[in-house]
């Protein structure tokens, strides 16, 4: 089939690469303004590689929107939640273009409930389906192809056939599709995010109790994960979840719940606990130093909201920086990928020192806070750390280290819920 993929999201990259690999003729349109590069660059190496391969084989072409040929069988729209305006402008252009209807139109953007219906109003003569964005940053391709069942919002039974044909090489079996009405699928997508967030906040809530009772939450987590009704995913206590899409889903769902008039505070609390959690390491530091952080130097390892991504959207690092700066502390920050993004937001300031080397960041530091569980932070050279730091204090926001061992190396250790 001839497929046009519109958007710059990770999902648009993944779907372009995968569909091209299966032999579809794919045009990936990810440049919408003059001056934008014609091709979005992802930090995800395997995705980058696959995209490159498909371009070379000729199944994948990139172009900007102005040069997009509307003679396609399928249009695939994948935009960020903040790009709704842009998406509508584009649909409007397509709406005025001259081509035969119906086409298969796939909305893969999360614009909240009725988001697909708003698109459909502009192009009512086409076949609309909604495909939830289930891509996980840092694990992009696998998170899509390894889905056990693909949720597809599709209001017309005859359109299901087209969807199946498009994705057949990736998902050959009928039971790999879960078709449902579009609105139901939109709500499902948000509910999944809500559930995952709830698990994290629940664990964080338990962690704060565990800490007061002298229990190690890590033992509890392992015990809970061993129960097959629960499983191990999204059970890690820490300094809070982040990420643009995930956070946006929670907000959208919370508002949808509130607007429905149903009195339901669970999601509000899930969100609040998480916001509290982002400051957790700061509060531990504050307690440790009895509220006197003026002039202290604090090293932070990790700025990305999770490992393997440069994204710092909704990352706990922001709450940490604001809180530390408000108390007159200086931050020395290391992250393998996110420093450029940090610099873009905060610019040059005397109380923020960006470090290319993780050990450079801890030099003369009064404390080291670990915020992102990058692999390279897993086994630090403790002797070297101890030598570099002004004061041997480690605050482990992801419970990455073994408390007993780290203490035996002469550090003061503070984790989450242990």
């Amino acid at each position, binding site marked *: 089939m001839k497929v046009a993929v519109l958007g710059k999201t990770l999902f648009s990259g993944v779907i372009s690469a995968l569909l091209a690999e299966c032999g579809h003729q794919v045009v990936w349109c990810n440049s919408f303004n003059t001056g934008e590069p014609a091709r979005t660059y992802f930090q995800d190496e395997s995705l980058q590689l696959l995209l490159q391969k498909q371009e070379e084989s000729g199944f994948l072409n990139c172009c900007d929107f102005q040069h997009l040929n509307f003679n396609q069988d399928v249009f695939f729209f994948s935009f960020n939640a903040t790009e709704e305006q842009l998406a509508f402008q584009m649909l409007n252009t397509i709406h005025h273009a001259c081509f035969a209807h119906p086409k298969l139109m796939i909305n893969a953007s999360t614009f909240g409930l009725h988001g697909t219906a708003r698109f459909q109003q502009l192009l009512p003569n086409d076949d609309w389906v909604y495909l939830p964005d289930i891509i996980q940053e840092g694990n992009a391709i696998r998170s899509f192809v390894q889905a056990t069942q693909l949720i597809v919002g599709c209001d017309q039974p005859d359109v299901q056939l087209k969807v199946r044909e498009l994705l057949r090489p990736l998902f050959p079996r009928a039971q790999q599709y879960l078709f449902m009405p579009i609105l139901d699928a939109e709500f499902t997508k948000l509910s999944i995010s809500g559930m995952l967030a709830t698990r994290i906040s629940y664990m964080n809530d338990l962690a704060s109790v565990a800490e007061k009772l002298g229990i190690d939450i890590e033992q509890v987590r392992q015990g809970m994960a061993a129960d097959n009704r629960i499983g191990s995913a999204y059970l890690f206590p820490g300094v809070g979840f982040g990420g643009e899409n995930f956070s946006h889903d929670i907000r959208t769902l919370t508002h949808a719940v509130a607007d429905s008039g149903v009195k339901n505070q669970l999601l509000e609390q899930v969100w609040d606990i998480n916001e509290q959690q982002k400051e957790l390491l700061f*509060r531990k*530091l*504050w307690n440790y130093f*009895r*509220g006197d952080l003026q002039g202290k130097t604090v090293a932070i390892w990790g700025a990305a909201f999770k490992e393997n991504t440069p994204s710092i959207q909704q990352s706990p690092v922001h709450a940490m920086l604001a*809180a530390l700066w*408000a*108390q007159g502390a200086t931050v020395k920050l290391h992250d393998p990928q996110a420093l450029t993004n940090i610099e873009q937001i905060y610019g040059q300031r005397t109380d923020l020192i960006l470090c290319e080397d993780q050990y450079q960041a801890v030099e003369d530091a009064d404390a080291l806070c670990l915020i992102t569980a990058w692999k390279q932070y897993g086994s630090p050279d403790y002797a070297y750390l101890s030598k570099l730091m002004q004061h041997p204090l480690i605050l482990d926001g992801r419970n990455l280290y073994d408390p007993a061992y780290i203490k035996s190396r002469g550090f003061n250790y503070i984790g989450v819920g242990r």
Partner: protein
Amino acid sequence: MLDQLKSDQNSNNAYKKLNSVKEQLKSIHLRQLFAADPERFNQYSVQFEQVVFDYSKHRVNHDAVQHLIEWAETQNLRSWIGSLFSTQTINYTEQRAAMHWALRLPKEDQQHEDLAAEVHAQLDRMYALVEQIHAGQRRGATGEVIQDVVNIGVGGSDLGPLMVSHALSDFKYQSAKPLNVHFVSTMDGSQLSELLHQLRPETTLFIISSKSFGTIDTLSNAQTVRLWLEKSLGQHPSIVKHHFIGVSTKPEKMTAWGIAPENQLLLWDWVGGRYSLWSCIGLPIALSIGVDGFKQLLAGAYAVDQHFQYKPLEQNIPVLMGLLGAWNTNFLDIQTHAILPYDGRLKYFASYLQQLEMESNGKSIQRNGEKVQLDTCPIIWGEVGPNAQHAFYQLLHQGTQAVSCDFIAPVKRYNSQQYTYVDNADALIEQHHLALSNCLAQSRLLAFGNDALDQTELQGLPAYKQYEGNQPSSTILLQELNPYSLGMLIALYEHKVFVQSVLWNINPFDQWGVEKGKEIANQLLPILNGEQTDISGLDGSTQGLIKILTA
């Protein structure tokens, strides 16, 4: 009363003239004054920036106003205003200046450069604190963000901030995290006991606001909350450091209590408590409406300071307010004055003015040490107008007391898209029009009596359904009730009080009448605590009551 005024020839003359105008006016009803002069509103109203002061419904004519101004002149009002706006110790019984005006000087004021610098140094410290709290970066001992601030103060350290915060609730600053400001004043702890069980110690900050830092009401409340905090957070000195702000003239006393120097905000002996909301005593106000809002409040008051100093007396609103009040009290024999705001946000305005006017001018000794020859401050009372209509308006309309009134209303309301009301603005604007129509109706009926009714209705109306009218009132319209116009309004009343103190030759800046009671209470406390048992020196009534209380 005429014979009481023999001492001063000039005043005597002015007084004589006023008395003869009074005789002329005695038999003239307000409706006749209006009938005789279609231009009366234009003649007897003054507009200044966002404020219109309409005094046409007072029982005065051209002569009365002229002679009142002569009276002010013979009392040297002009030069007294000069003394107020100087560093002179016009509060002679305490050897202090009364420079609340200095608190609203612009930062770059040329005339009082040093004073402005001193005042703004403290204001800037307060602003920094407010901004820290609003940013969600002020933290309690556990590092949690402060979300509740409790102002502990009494009198001027309570009423002013409370009144203004409430009045400007539509201008609430939207802080990073929800912030609630509470007020605690009563020495019996009733407000505290209700509040404490709703608050979390970890996220609560207390302001101890006391000019002298010796007020027992405030210190007893402060002690209770300190124990409350220590019970859940422990006794480390960092608890007090992270949960208490002090506002006072006495840094050494604040330090002794445990308040960290960086948490001490200072004011000066030259500010009276009831004139202090413009200083750091206004911290709860700044927390409610934000730093910019607070600056607007000061700017409004500063504008009135300029108006008061430089406008001719006959165009000078505080002067007119003071003179009309004295006219009503001293010549028309009206002994009470009601404050009737037609805006629920001004709920505490009457209580605030009770303190401002009655504590200032409730005096009977002149500056020369002699007993006053005229009645001084009338009883000030009042309530939000629409509610009062269902309470005491009956007495105003058909009772036997003569009462003068101030009607206060904003012209526009619900017009600035504030998040607190924007969703319901249309319906609320209609309610505002309803309140305004009631405001106008009541002042009409009070002034004109039956004349305000439909004349055809009057036929055969029984006496108990009739209205005398002839009750004088002022109407003060604010373009809208905002920080600037409220600053203006309060300053107008402050200066009105000063004008009257000059007319009556009394010191409005002391309060010796409230000092003695505190002392006697201190003598009785040991008896009630059982530390002292000899009560033979007391009067029979107190002895009898103590026996019950200690039984």
